[in-house]
């Protein structure tokens, strides 16, 4: 049994040392090997590592981790295929580490392993945002990093309190009755940030659209879905998540109406779709938990396909706004068709994979007699088709012609989209392939007459309303203020004010010090000695930084220290 994440880490080590075709072979081979190593996973054994007094479980396989690790391995293969033309070793290495650490989280058996991979995901994904190299991506990346450091700290604090109060070291479900309440809420908040539950979601819609075209495919797949996995693992049946999920599903829809940036629109629909999963986790019945798991699986496939489609548009045109795009469908026919498969899937068209998973969660809400939840999730589903299925493709590919120059799209990008489209359709046509992997034993039949008729009626109603309201739906050249406003406006001003205050206090103190020395100088001399000030005493030239170690030195010694601790612990 081999950890598929380890296979990706090893691939990441080799990648920088090979070039051109050899590197492409290594990348493709590494991701295929990760898929093969997924096949080697079995429930009976695990990987244990003793560090000091702790026994880490680096690899723990059960039905829930098995299905998540499969979809992560699949999307890594598809995403790497899509990025094969891209020769940035930096991006490839960060992608592989990001994918490998996501696999590390879902296969982790203990808190320490989970947390280490959780943080590694945050750091490695950051480079996918910075990789696009624009000024905006630089700033968005810093904000992304700060939010994830904050979220990671909450999670870490929660884990420490949980362990301190006698919690088990192995990762297992937390309940309000048995878990320390502070630990429960800190862990939940830390995970909620990665799951992008509003108001803690703005990092996602801020940063994902700024990432490189190839990087955003991976971003759309991993961070929120590992968080869904952790929610499934830790908080099944936590009531608060039902309403958090419903709010998410609708929140994403509202913002998607206002959005002009094509990838930001898709990002708001990640929030909306993850809302279904979060609501499913909150409901906590076997059907709902299976629904959340299945929907995470489907979502990764169709969302990566949608991001690949819009990425292809950005690659070809260099543009990213609805108001700038339009009239390119006849020159990008294949992309339009492949995108349409993703759009049909996310919108829940029968015979595509979104239908077989989303309907499980909505049916679970009905089964639990939650009428408002059922109606609101269905409403969000209308919004999904409206935006991703109608508005976005209409204004991007069709709509008024804008005389745009297109550059040809590399074959590998089209092949990757083709693989994604085939998988979205395959799981929709043969739902048993997915249902057979689900962790809980329930029976569900998506293709009943009433389900199919309802789905088509809902889609037709939405399409008619779209057609009637078409004039109102075009992109507007605005930005939408979201909860990141708090740290981009007032918090930024506060920090700047604090820095200015401290700086001016420091300057005043140093001026006062210089004045004191200048005046006190005369009194420090022997009364009979020279009264004049010597030439070499020039206090104003004193530069405190000359006598300080650079911060890199401190970091270096900290790293050495931790390396020594790790080595002694392992010995």
């Amino acid at each position, binding site marked *: 049994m081999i950890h598929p994440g380890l296979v990706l880490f090893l691939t990441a080590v080799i990648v920088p040392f090979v070039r051109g075709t050899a590197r492409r072979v290594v990348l493709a081979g590494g991701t295929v090997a990760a898929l093969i190593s997924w096949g080697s996973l079995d429930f009976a054994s695990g990987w244990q590592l003793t560090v000091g007094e702790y026994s880490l479980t680096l690899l723990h396989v059960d039905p829930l981790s098995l299905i998540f690790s499969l979809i992560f391995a699949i999307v890594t293969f598809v995403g790497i295929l899509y*990025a094969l*033309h*891209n020769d*940035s070793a930096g991006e490839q290495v960060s992608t592989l580490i990001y994918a490998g650490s996501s696999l590390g989280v879902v296969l982790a058996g203990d808190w320490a392993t989970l947390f280490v991979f959780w943080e590694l995901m945050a750091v490695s994904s950051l480079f996918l945002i910075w990789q*696009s*190299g*624009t*000024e*905006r*991506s630089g*700033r968005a990346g810093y904000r992304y990093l700060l939010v994830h450091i904050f979220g990671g700290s909450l999670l870490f604090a929660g884990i420490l309190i949980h362990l301190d109060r006698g919690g088990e070291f192995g990762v297992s479900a937390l309940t309000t009755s048995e878990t320390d309440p502070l630990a429960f809420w800190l862990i939940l908040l830390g995970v909620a940030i990665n799951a992008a539950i509003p108001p803690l979601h703005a990092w996602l819609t801020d940063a994902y659209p*700024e990432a*490189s*075209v*190839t990087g955003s495919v991976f971003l759309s797949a991993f961070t929120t879905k590992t968080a869904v996995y952790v929610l499934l693992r830790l908080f099944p049946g936590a009531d608060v998540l039902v309403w958090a999920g419903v709010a998410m599903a609708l929140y994403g*829809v*509202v913002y998607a*109406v*206002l959005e002009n940036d094509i990838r930001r629109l898709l990002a708001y629909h990640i929030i909306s779709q993850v809302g279904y999963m979060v609501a499913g986790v909150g409901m906590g019945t076997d059907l709902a938990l299976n629904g959340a798991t299945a929907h995470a699986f489907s979502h990764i496939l169709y969302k990566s396909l949608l991001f690949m489609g819009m990425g292809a548009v*950005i*690659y070809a045109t*260099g*543009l*990213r706004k609805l108001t700038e795009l339009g009239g390119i469908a006849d020159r990008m026919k294949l992309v339009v068709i492949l995108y349409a498969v993703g759009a049909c899937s996310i919108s829940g068209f029968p015979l595509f994979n979104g239908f077989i998973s989303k309907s499980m969660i909505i049916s679970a809400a*009905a*089964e639990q*007699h939650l*009428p408002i939840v059922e109606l609101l999730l*269905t*409403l969000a589903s*209308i*919004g999904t088709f*409206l935006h991703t299925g109608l508005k976005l493709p209409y204004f991007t590919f069709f709509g008024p012609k804008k005389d745009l120059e297109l550059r040809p799209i590399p074959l590998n990008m089209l092949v990757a989209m083709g693989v994604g489209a085939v998988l979205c359709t395959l799981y929709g046509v043969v739902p048993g392939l997915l249902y057979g992997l689900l962790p809980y034993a329930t029976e569900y039949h998506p293709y*009943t*007459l*009433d389900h199919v*008729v*309802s*789905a*088509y*009626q*809902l*889609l*037709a*109603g*939405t*399409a*008619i*309303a779209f*057609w009637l*309201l078409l004039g*109102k*739906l075009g992109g*507007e*050249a*605005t*930005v*939408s*203020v*979201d909860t990141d406003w708090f740290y981009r406006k007032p918090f930024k001003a506060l920090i700047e004010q604090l820095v200015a205050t401290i700086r001016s206090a420091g300057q005043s103190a140093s001026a006062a010090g210089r004045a004191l020395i200048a005046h006190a100088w005369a009194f420090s001399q022997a009364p009979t000695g020279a009264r004049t000030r010597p030439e070499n005493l020039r206090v104003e030239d004193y530069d405190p930084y000359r006598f300080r170690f650079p911060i890199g030195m401190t970091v270096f010694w900290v790293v050495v220290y931790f390396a020594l601790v790790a080595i002694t612990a392992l010995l």
Partner: protein
Amino acid sequence: MKRITIATAIFVLSTAALELAFRHLAHATFFWHKLPAFDFVYGVLGCGLIVFGSKWVGHKFVQRDVNYYDDRPDQRDQLDH
């Protein structure tokens, strides 16, 4: 316009007829599960609600000028990979 109206009417009537004919097979938990063509009407009204509701919220509270956050004025970022 006329053709779309006719096609929609045919679609709604035929699916509603199907729903009525196979009513005994349906999993009806709430009363609207039994109403013929409920999902079509919900789709139309829901879509209208989403568009008008969101636009109202957007124009009133959420939307700002593109340079609101001091980003470079509408720069066309070059994304080559």
